[in-house]
């Protein structure tokens, strides 16, 4: 989780990712952010995030994103 927060903060230093719950709906993360995020995550956690996982519910908060990572590494 800490590593994830680090990746996120690298992307947008001015956002408090621990509390923010509407990263997508409020337009904080745009599609390009999401792609670089996915690249970083797949390197860091060795999971494959596919296009079907890219839905607001998975990316709206750091918590949700972390849950997705756990779920995916569980499946592999």
């Amino acid at each position: 989780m800490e590593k994830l927060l680090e990746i996120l903060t690298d992307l947008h230093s001015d956002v408090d990712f621990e509390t923010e719950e509407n990263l997508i709906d409020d337009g904080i993360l745009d599609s390009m952010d999401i792609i670089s995020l996915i690249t970083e995550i797949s390197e860091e956690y060795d999971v494959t995030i596919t296009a079907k996982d890219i839905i607001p519910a998975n990316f709206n908060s750091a918590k949700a994103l972390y849950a997705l990572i756990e779920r995916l590494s569980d499946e592999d």
Partner: protein
Amino acid sequence: MLFTSYEFLGFCAVLLLLYYIIPKKAQWPLLLVASYAFYFIAGPQFIPFIAATTLTVYLTARVMQSIADKQSAFLKAHKEELSKEEKKIFKDKQKRKKLFWFVLCLLLNLGILATVKYANFFIGNINSALISFGSKSVLSFVNVIVPLGISFYTFQSIGYLIDVYRGTVTAEKNVFKYALFVSFFPQLVQGPIGRYGQMSETLYTPHKFDSKQVGFGLERVLWGYFKKLVIADRLFVAVSTMIGDPSTYNGAYSIVIMLFYTVQLYADFTGGIDITIGLAEAMGIRLSENFDRPYFSKSLKEYWRRWHISMCSWFRDYLFYPVSVSKPMQKLTKFTKKVFGNNVGKRIPVYLSTAIVWFSTGIWHGASWNFIVWGMANFAVLMISEEFEPLYKKFNDRFKFTKSFPYTLFRVVRTFALVCALNLFDCYVSIATTGKIFFSAFGARNYHVLFDGSLLNLGLTSLDYIILLGGVLLMLTVSLLQRKGSVREQIFRLPYPVRFALYYGLFLIIILMGAYGIGYDASQFIYNQF
């Protein structure tokens, strides 16, 4: 049947009446019949096309669904006995089966779209290539009909196909229900491109007559007609006059063209969508919004989040993301990162995906080069601003005034001007003409035409300009009010006589000032030219 024809109004009036008279269970079948009737009136020869897309996508989705169902049943039944490895092998095998059907259906439907819409474009390009290589013989153009709304219903169907493939929605069992999803007539002509998951929530459910809901829907329809008839169709007169004669209308006129066309496009497109969504709303069906006050955007990137949302999100979800996270692209990322370093390296593949999306968006708009160039121009601007993003950020952090209203306004105006310029690609088929017209605006010597009454020779009288100004101000007011929530709710809270006066006033304005019918002098003017 155009939205602005009497036939369409009559068609909708009869439909709406029937819709609330018949048993609730028959409502969605009625819509299916109406949609096919609508399509039949547009051209009986188009029916096989939409029927083919409907059937192939429906069947493929069913096949994919049954594979998925069997897979989860099997996994559930053998949960204990199978090892993780075995499960993975089984899943991959199922996935390949699904993929086969998916790709087959996708290629078939994209093939139909490509053939009817782009065949002549390809032939034309091949011919110019042949000629430039000195060939004397050229291919002849094929005589194809472009079925009404094919770009929209094909994309809507493919979106559904991908959703079922991904397992984000369950395939529709009832072929007639599915046929309605594809053919729902209000959105057939110009979208919005619906998502099955969202539309199926209200499309098939019984709807009781709710006077507020019907009233709200019709109110929005009325507002759409106002935008279309009073503003867009009036501006059309001047815009088509200017675009039709580039040798006369350039220089200072270029600014007028860009401005007028951008307003016309907004009024026409958002007006049409208002009619579509309002009509659906009057029948209790919720369609997704397609615009979010786009001309208030502070950057082009933001603009593309707020303009033609259903199309942009389609390209994002079904093209940009899959391409970006695809294995080859991820490999490319690793490679570029190694070569160019982390910072630059990770951006290159994203830009590549973005370029693919904008190329597709361009060609989706029309089978000609000006649209492709338009798409690539959008891409270029987006990429450049992305590159400058860190600089902007520093600038914004450094100077406080960047948070002030005037600066925000400046950004909005700048974005609007950019959109105006990009829209010029829409106006002329020839890219050379677009370039000539655009650059003629700089250092032109005819700026006096903006003030010496020359604008009154474009087919619009000074009264027309007053109406246009009033109309634009009204649109602006409504957009500003929208920031405080639904304007219709705000009106609804007013006393009935005031409300009635507003509705009826808008209706009368459309009747009296709408640029419609044979009696509209300005349209007669266009007639005279031919």
